[in-house]
C-alpha cells in the first residue's frame, strides 16, 4: 500500500477537504469559457493523504538524517529556530501588495538582512529578489550587462569562465545573451593566468569565478586576475556557492569582485527542501545598484530570507567568523585521513571541499558511482560525483562545519571500508545500494522512454 502513487489510492467520491458552507448566490460561469471535464485529481480521505506522504518521506534522506558531504552544496545543519522564524504568524499572511505602513516589520527584517549581507560580502548593495543561486547569477550578469550598456558599450558580450566552474555559470551567461569563453586551469587546479591573458579584450563583459574554486583551492592569483580583468574593462563576478570557507577570512568585495550572488540555502543554513525554495541574493558595488533588474515582482523568497536572518543573528559576529575555518578544518581532516586509499589528484592546501579522483587502486573496476551508491548503504549521502569535469572519477567532498568529529570519523571509516570491499568483494560495491529503499535505478530507460506523468486510464 505504501509504495503506490497517490492516484492509485484514489476512489471516486472520497474527499480530503472541508470548506465552509457557501453563503453567496451562485454565479454560473459562462459555458464557453468553462472547462468541460474536471481535472482527474486524486480523491482521498485525509488520513490516506497523510499516510501516503508520511511514509514516502521515509524514502528520503536529509541533513537531519545524516552526513551529507555534497561538494559545492554546503549541506550544513538547518537550525530549527530558522523554521520557527519562517512560521511566525505575524509574517506568513502578509499580501505582497499590502501598503508599506502595514508591513513595516517585514520590511525592517529584509532591510536588516540586506545590511548584514552587504557587510559579510563587502558589497555596497544587495537585492533579495532572486529565488535561487542560478537566478542570482543571471541577475548578476544582467547588472553587468546593464552597466556596460549604460555606457553605450554594446560590444561586451563575452564572459570568461574557468573550466572548473559550476555548470550554472555558462548556462546563466547564455540566458543573459552572453558568449562563454572557457579559461583553462593549471595543473594545481587554479586559473591559468597566461591563458586568461590571451582571452582578454574589449569584448569581455565579465569574468565569473568562485573562490575557492570547485576543487576547493583558493585562487591565490586572485588580485592579479581581478586587475587584469578590470584593466580590460570587464567586471568580476563572484559565484557565492563556495563562500562558506571564506566566512571569517576574506570578503569577495575586498578581493575586488564587483558583483556576487549568495546561496542562502548553502552558506546561510536555509534548508534545501529537496531542490528549493532557495534564495540567491545579489550584491554589487554601490555604483552598480541602479542596474538591479526586475527578476521577481516582490521581495523574492521572503520566508527563506527570514531563516537566513535568524541564522546570522544566531551566529553573530563572534561565530560567523568560525564558519570558514571550521569547515576547512573538517574537510582537510577527511582529506588527510583518506588520501592513501583515494586518489588525490591535486595536493596542497584546500578549503571547505576537495576532490578525489576515485579509488587509488583502479584495478578493481569499482568506480566513483559504485562508491557513491555503496555509501548510501551505510547511512551517508554520497559526495558530488563526476564533477568537476577535470577528472574522470571526481568525488567532491564537503563536510561543512556542522559535522562533529565522531560523525566525520564514521564517514572516514566507511569510505575506508568501501575501499577494502572494492578489493575483497567488488561485486558487492558495484551492485550497491543494497540497504536503500530501492536498488540502483535505470537512468537510461527513463531518458529513452520518457514517462513523465501517470496515465489517466492505467
Amino acid at each position, binding site marked *: 500500500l505504501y509504495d503506490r502513487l497517490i492516484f492509485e489510492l484514489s476512489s471516486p467520491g472520497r474527499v480530503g477537504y472541508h470548506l465552509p458552507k457557501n453563503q453567496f448566490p451562485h454565479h454560473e460561469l459562462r459555458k464557453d469559457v468553462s472547462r468541460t471535464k474536471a481535472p482527474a485529481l486524486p480523491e482521498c480521505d485525509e488520513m490516506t493523504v497523510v499516510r501516503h506522504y508520511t511514509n514516502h518521506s521515509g524514502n528520503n534522506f536529509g541533513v537531519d538524517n545524516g552526513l551529507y558531504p555534497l561538494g559545492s552544496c554546503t549541506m550544513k545543519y538547518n537550525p530549527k529556530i530558522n523554521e520557527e522564524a519562517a512560521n511566525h504568524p505575524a509574517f506568513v499572511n502578509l499580501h*505582497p501588495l499590502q501598503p508599506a505602513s502595514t508591513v513595516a516589520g517585514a520590511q525592517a527584517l529584509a532591510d536588516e538582512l540586506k545590511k548584514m549581507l552587504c557587510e559579510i560580502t563587502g558589497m555596497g548593495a544587495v537585492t533579495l529578489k532572486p529565488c535561487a543561486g542560478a537566478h542570482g547569477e543571471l541577475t548578476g550578469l544582467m547588472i553587468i550587462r546593464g552597466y556596460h550598456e549604460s555606457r553605450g558599450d554594446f560590444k561586451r558580450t563575452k564572459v570568461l569562465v574557468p573550466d572548473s566552474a559550476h555548470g550554472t555559470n555558462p548556462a546563466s551567461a547564455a540566458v543573459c545573451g552572453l558568449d562563454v569563453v572557457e579559461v583553462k586551469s593549471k595543473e594545481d587546479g587554479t586559473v591559468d593566468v597566461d591563458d586568461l591573458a590571451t582571452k582578454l579584450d574589449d569584448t569581455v563583459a565579465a569574468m565569473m569565478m568562485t573562490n575557492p574554486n570547485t576543487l576547493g583551492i583558493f585562487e591565490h592569483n586572485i588580485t592579479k586576475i581581478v586587475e587584469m580583468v578590470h584593466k580590460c574593462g570587464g567586471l568580476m563576478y563572484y559565484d557565492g556557492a563556495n563562500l562558506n570557507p571564506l566566512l571569517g577570512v576574506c570578503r569577495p568585495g575586498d578581493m575586488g569582485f564587483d558583483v556576487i550572488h549568495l546561496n542562502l540555502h548553502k552558506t546561510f543554513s536555509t534548508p534545501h527542501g529537496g531542490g528549493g525554495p532557495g534564495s540567491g541574493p545579489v550584491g554589487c558595488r554601490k555604483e552598480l545598484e541602479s542596474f538591479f533588474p526586475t527578476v521577481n515582482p516582490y521581495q523574492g523568497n521572503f520566508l527563506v530570507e527570514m531563516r537566513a536572518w535568524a541564522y546570522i543573528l544566531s551566529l553573530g559576529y563572534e561565530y560567523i567568523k568560525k564558519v570558514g575555518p571550521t569547515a576547512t578544518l573538517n574537510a582537510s581532516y577527511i582529506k588527510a585521513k583518506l588520501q592513501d586509499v583515494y586518489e588525490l589528484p591535486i595536493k596542497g592546501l584546500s578549503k571547505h571541499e576537495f576532490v578525489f579522483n576515485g579509488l587509488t587502486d583502479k584495478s578493481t573496476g569499482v568506480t566513483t558511482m559504485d562508491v557513491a551508491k555503496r555509501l548510501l548503504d551505510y547511512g551517508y549521502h554520497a559526495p558530488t560525483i563526476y564533477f568537476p569535469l577535470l577528472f574522470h572519477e571526481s568525488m567532491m567532498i564537503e563536510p561543512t562545519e556542522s559535522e562533529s568529529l565522531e560523525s566525520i570519523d564514521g564517514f572516514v571509516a566507511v569510505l575506508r571500508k568501501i575501499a577494502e570491499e572494492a578489493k575483497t568483494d567488488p561485486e558487492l560495491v558495484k551492485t550497491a545500494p543494497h540497504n536503500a529503499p530501492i536498488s540502483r535505478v535505470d537512468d537510461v530507460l527513463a531518458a529513452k522512454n520518457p514517462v513523465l506523468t501517470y496515465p489517466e486510464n492505467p
Partner: protein
Amino acid sequence: MHPFFPQTSDDIKHMLDVIGIESVDDLYKDVPDNVRLKKDYDLPSSQSEIEIRRKLAEFGKLNKQLVCFAGAGAYDHYTPAVIPQIVERSEFLTSYTPYQAEISQGTLHYIFEYQTMMARLTGMDISNANMYDGSTATAEAALMAVASTKKTNKVILSDGIDPKVKEVVKTYAHFHGLELLSLPTVNGATDFSALDETLAQGGVAGLIVQQPNRYGIVEDYTGVADRCHAAKALLIINSVAADLSMLKTPGEWGADIAVGEGQSLGIPLSWGGPYIGYMCTTEKHMRKMPGRIVGQTVDQDGKRAFVLTLQAREQHIRRQRATSNICSNQGLMALWVTIYMSLMGPQGLKEATQMGCDGAHYLHDQLIATGHFCDAFPGQEFLNEFCVKYDGDLAALQEKWVENGFMGGVAISDDTVMFAVTEQRTKEEIDQLVALIS
C-alpha cells in the same frame, strides 16, 4: 561554545595533529594578506533563541494583519492543516535535489505526482518539476518559444498580462535579445483583431496571453491557437493555477505552453514568496522545456522507481547550451501544492473556486449597490476578481479600510480598484467592508 559548532578544543587539536599542522590558520596560508579580513564583521552579536524570538515579536508587531480582498497575482486561499505538518518533515525539508535517486524516492515520487496533477489541471501533456514563480515561468516560456521555433526572436505579449509579470518578461527578453510586440486590450480584454497582422511580420515565436487577465476578465481564445499555429508561432497561456479548476484549460484552447503562478494552490501569501511557477507543454516540445523533469523507470530489481530525467537539457550537462540555467527551483513548494491537490481533489478545488467566484460577484453587486462604484469594464465575465471605478477619493477609502483591518483591493489607477475574493472571505466581512464606504 555554540550549539551549531560541535568541535571542542580537544577535537580541533586532534584534527590538526592528523593533518599535520599547528593551527587552523595554517590552512589559509595561501590566502594573500592583502585580501584578508582584518576586523570583526560589523554585525550584531550572537543572539540566543530567546532573543531572536523577542526580535521577531517586535518586528511582527509592526506588521498589520488585514482581512484580504487583494489579489493581482497572489491570493488569500486556505491552507489545509495537513500541509505544513507534512512539508516540514525533515526528510523532505533538509534533503538536496534528488541526484541520488535511491535515497530520494520521497522527493522524486511527489514531483512525479505534481507533474501529473499539473498536466491534468492545465489539460497539457506534460509538466516540468516547477519554476520559481509565475513571472519567471512566463519569461522562460518566451525563451522556450524562441528556442522551439526556427529563425524567430519576437514574442507578442497581450496588454492583458499583469504588468508585474510583463516587467520580468521584459527583463529576460531584453538581455536575451528578444523583441517584444504587443496586442492591445479593448474594454479590458485582449483584442485579437490585429493578431494576424502582427504575426505576419514574421519571426514571431509565440503569443502570450493571461487568463483571467490583469483585470480579472475571463477572455475568449476561440481560434487564437489556430491563428498562431498557422504562422508557426506558439500560443502560451498564463493562468492562475487554482482558477483552472473552473476555466477552460490551456489544453482545451490549444495552447502549446501553459505557465503561471501556483501560489493559489494553498500556498500562504508570505509577503510574496516562496511561491511556485508551473510550466506545462505538449509532448512535441518536451525536450525544449527548461527545468527539472522527473520520469518513471525501474530499479535493478524491476521495481518502479523515479529519477531526474532528460538531463541532456540541463546546465550541469550542457552548460551554456542548456535550455535554461535553472537548477534549484521551488522543490518543497511542489510538495505543498501536490498535497493541496491531493486533499482538495477535483471537487474541493472547484468548490473553493466557485465560492470565491460567488463571493466576488456578491461583493461586486454590493459595491455597485452603494451607488459609489461602477464597472470598470462593463459586461465582462469574471471569476473571483474584478475592477470597479470609485466616484470618491480611492486612496482615502483604502486608507480607511486599512485602519479598520481590511485590505480593500489593489488600486490599478487613481479611481479604479481590483478586488479579489477567496473561499476564506465571509459574507460578514464583505458586508463590513462595504459598510465602511461612505
